[in-house]
């Protein structure tokens, strides 16, 4: 079965979505990621969606859920590299994913994770 690889870098997990997400895949990712966070005691999760070009409301909600679940498991989540078209679509769908941290690229995402963890922020803030 198709799976999205979850890479461990230090105490972070990196998920790079390179294929079009379908519902089953999104659910599998959710299961895998939560398991991995607990297993490796990850402090932060970076989800790179720069190759993702199509989203629907389900995928949008799943991304939001994944972020919320990670937070419950004490791992900060940053969504990086969203395409303009995807951002516009999500906003038009009425999903502005409040409470999810975002960054322009993996570099900035890592920096954001670092500061968030240093400050011991609970992640429910405004994403700055």
């Amino acid at each position, binding site marked *: 079965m198709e799976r999205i690889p979850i890479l461990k870098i230090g105490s972070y997990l990196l998920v790079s979505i390179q294929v079009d997400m379908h519902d089953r895949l999104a659910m599998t990712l959710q299961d895998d990621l939560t398991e991995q966070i607990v297993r490796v005691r990850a402090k932060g999760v970076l989800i790179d969606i720069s190759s993702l070009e199509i989203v629907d409301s389900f995928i949008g909600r799943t991304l939001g859920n994944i972020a919320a679940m990670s937070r419950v498991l004490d791992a900060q989540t940053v969504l990086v590299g969203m395409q*303009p078209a995807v951002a516009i679509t999500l906003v038009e769908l009425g999903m502005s994913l409040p409470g999810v941290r975002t960054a322009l690229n993996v570099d900035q995402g890592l920096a954001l994770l670092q500061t968030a963890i240093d400050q011991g922020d609970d992640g429910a803030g405004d994403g700055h």
Partner: protein
Amino acid sequence: MSSTIDQRIAQVLTANESEMLADWLKRQQQEGRTRYDEAEAREKSSQFLKLFAAAIQNGSLEGVGPQWQDVYDMLADLSRNRAQQGFSPSETAAFIFSLKQTLFDRLRREFGSDSHGLVDAVWTASNVLDKLGLYTTEVHQKRREEVIARQQQELLELSTPVVELWDGILALPLIGTLDSSRTQVVMESLLERIVETSAKIAIIEITGVPTVDTLVAQHLLKTVAAARLMGADCIISGIRPQIAQTIVHLGVDLGTVITKATLADAFRIALQRSNLTVTRTQTS
């Protein structure tokens, strides 16, 4: 029957060409008033008469078919030129319609007492000239519409520049009313530039937006939300006192969006966020 009328009209046209040209030009001058350009009118008129006579001889007086293509091409060219020079549609169409009187005078002389033939001939000629006249108006209108469409596009592009204030700080000065289609363009160009420049902060400057109602506010919030999803923060600046009052009266919730009264304040915040400071240099 109809072919003989066609031939006779064609004959009238070719036989009296120079005389008709002079008469027609005089009428154009009367109708054209200030815009009349002797040389241009003479050239176009004689060209038209030749093409018109040729079309009748080769085809029919129906005003359709491949024989008429040259006439239509010439008229299209003429109308486009005149539309560009600011002629009104009726002034453009007057070029063709002023030929009627001239042609009918000649036809009357040609047919003499044959009133049946004269009525037929006038009817056919009138028909085809009307068709041609309407065609000039049509082309004129189309040309004007092209101009309007182009200006609209230019306005749309002009009004949404995204400027880079500093490394990683973008500004989007908005001028004019924000409607749905403009918001779309604004949003797209801002997001594209955010990707291009990897900017972390975007300042939306709305001094030039005359009114902010619930719809405009919603459009602004959408733009801010989309930019945030991509990982850039937005600051809305240039909120005039009047607009602040409207926003509150309307009960618009700007949520967590940072708002500043002036662009300078917004820029200061942006610099602070980027861990930059501006200091005065020591003067000697």
